[in-house]
C-alpha cells in the first residue's frame, strides 16, 4: 500500500509517477497521457460543449458537433441528468436526439444490471452463419499496432491509442472490422477498447460490441469504404487504394463475410 502525492510540479511529473507506480498493472506499451485532461467542468463550460441542434444534424460525422463529455460522465464528474437539463434549456425539440443518446447510456446500465453475464458472454448466438468457436480469441498484431491494410482504420486506432477518445461511428467501424472482416471474438475487441477509452464503461462498450457482432441484435453490422468516406472523408484517408479490404458494395461484402448466412 502506498500513499500517493496530491501535488505535482507539472503534468509530466504525474505521468512519470503513474508509469513507475503502476508498472505491473498497466497494459503493455502506451505510456503517454491523453491530450484530454481530467478536470472538473463548470456548468458554463459544460453548456459550451453541448449544441443540441447541431448534434442532431451532424453527430454521425467524424467532425460533427458531439459534446466529447463522455469521459466525464463515465467517471461521475457530471451526470447525464445534468447534461440533459442543460440541453433541454434550449427547448425540447432540438434536445431530443441529444437526450435520447444520454438515455442510451442509462439503457446499457439497465441491461447490465438485469443480465450481468452479458458483459462477457454472448447474449445470443451470432447471426452470421458462424458459431462463436469460429472466431479467434486474440487480436492480431496489425490491429493492436494500427498497421492494418486500411488507412482509415489505422487512423481510428491511432485516435484510440493516443487520445483514448474515438468517435462513435468510428468505434462501430473498428468493431465491425475486428469481428466480421477478421473474424475475432467481440470480447477481445471489447477488452481492447475498455483498456484505452477514457469513457470505457463495460455496460455500454461490451453491449455495443455485442450489437455489432449480432449476439445482441438481429443481424451483424457491417460498413464499406463509401460509408466511411461519407462521414469521415474530409478528415481521414478514404482512398480505395489505401483501404483495399473495405472498397466494395454491401452485397459483395455480405457474400464475402457471411457466405453461410441464411437470410
Amino acid at each position, binding site marked *: *500500500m*502506498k*500513499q*500517493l*502525492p*496530491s501535488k*505535482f510540479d507539472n*503534468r509530466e511529473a*504525474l505521468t512519470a509517477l*503513474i508509469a513507475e*507506480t*503502476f508498472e*505491473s*498493472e*498497466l*497494459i503493455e506499451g*502506451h505510456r*503517454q*497521457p*491523453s491530450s484530454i*485532461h*481530467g*478536470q*472538473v467542468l463548470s456548468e458554463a463550460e459544460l453548456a459550451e460543449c453541448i449544441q443540441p441542434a447541431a448534434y442532431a444534424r451532424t453527430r454521425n460525422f467524424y467532425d460533427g458537433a458531439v459534446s466529447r463529455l463522455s*469521459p466525464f460522465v463515465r*467517471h*461521475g*464528474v*457530471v*451526470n447525464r*441528468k*445534468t447534461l*440533459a437539463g442543460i440541453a*433541454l434549456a434550449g427547448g*425540447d425539440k432540438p434536445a431530443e436526439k441529444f*437526450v435520447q443518446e444520454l*438515455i*442510451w447510456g*442509462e*439503457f446499457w*446500465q*439497465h*441491461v*447490465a*444490471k*438485469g443480465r*450481468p453475464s452479458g*458483459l462477457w458472454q454472448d447474449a445470443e448466438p451470432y447471426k452470421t452463419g458462424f458459431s462463436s468457436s469460429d472466431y479467434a480469441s486474440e487480436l492480431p498484431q496489425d490491429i493492436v499496432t494500427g498497421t492494418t491494410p486500411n488507412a482509415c482504420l489505422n487512423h481510428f486506432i491511432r485516435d484510440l*491509442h493516443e*487520445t*483514448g477518445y474515438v468517435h462513435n461511428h468510428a468505434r462501430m467501424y473498428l468493431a465491425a472490422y475486428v469481428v466480421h472482416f477478421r473474424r475475432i471474438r467481440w470480447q477481445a475487441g471489447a477488452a481492447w477498447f*475498455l*483498456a*484505452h*477509452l*477514457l469513457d*470505457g*464503461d*463495460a*455496460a455500454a462498450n461490451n453491449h455495443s460490441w455485442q450489437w455489432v457482432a449480432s449476439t445482441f441484435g438481429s443481424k451483424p453490422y457491417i460498413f464499406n469504404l463509401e460509408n466511411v468516406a461519407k462521414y469521415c472523408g474530409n478528415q481521414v484517408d478514404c482512398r480505395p487504394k489505401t483501404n483495399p479490404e473495405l472498397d466494395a458494395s454491401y452485397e459483395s461484402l455480405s457474400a464475402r463475410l457471411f457466405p453461410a448466412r441464411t437470410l
Partner: protein
Amino acid sequence: MSPQLFWLHDEVLSEALIEAQGTECCTFLFVFDTVWLRQRPVSLKRIQFIYETLLALPVAIEIVYGDAAEVLKQKGLEHPGLVCKVIAPNDPELFERIEGIANEAGIAILERPRWFPPPAIKAFRFFKFYKAVRGAAILAARDRGVER
C-alpha cells in the same frame, strides 16, 4: 458525531462529494485498487485522467495505491468508530468487488442517485426502454436544480 469517510471509486468522482454535502467531519479516500486493475487492465491515459480529476476536485482527497480491501481494513483499525460509506457502482463486476470489501470492512453501500426510475416492464431493447422512461427522464432533467 462520528468521523465519516467517503470511499470514492472511478464511477463517482464527484457524486460522493454531493452525497457528503453538509456532513461534518467528513474525509474522502480514493484507492487505485491493484486487485481491480489486474482484473480490468487499463492504459496510462485512463489512470492519468482519473488522477487529474481527483486533483481538480474542490476537496482534499487521500489517494492510495494498493489492495483496496487492505486499505479499508487498515482505516478501520486506525480510526475506531469511523463510519465509512461508498456509493454503489453500476458495473456489476466492480459492484461485486466493492460489496465483498464492504462486507468485510463494515462499509455502508449507498444506492446511487438515479436520473429516473427504471421501467416497470422488462425492456432489453432500446426503443421499448426509451418509450417507457422518456417522459420521466425529461421531467427529472428539467427539475434537476443545482447538482452535478
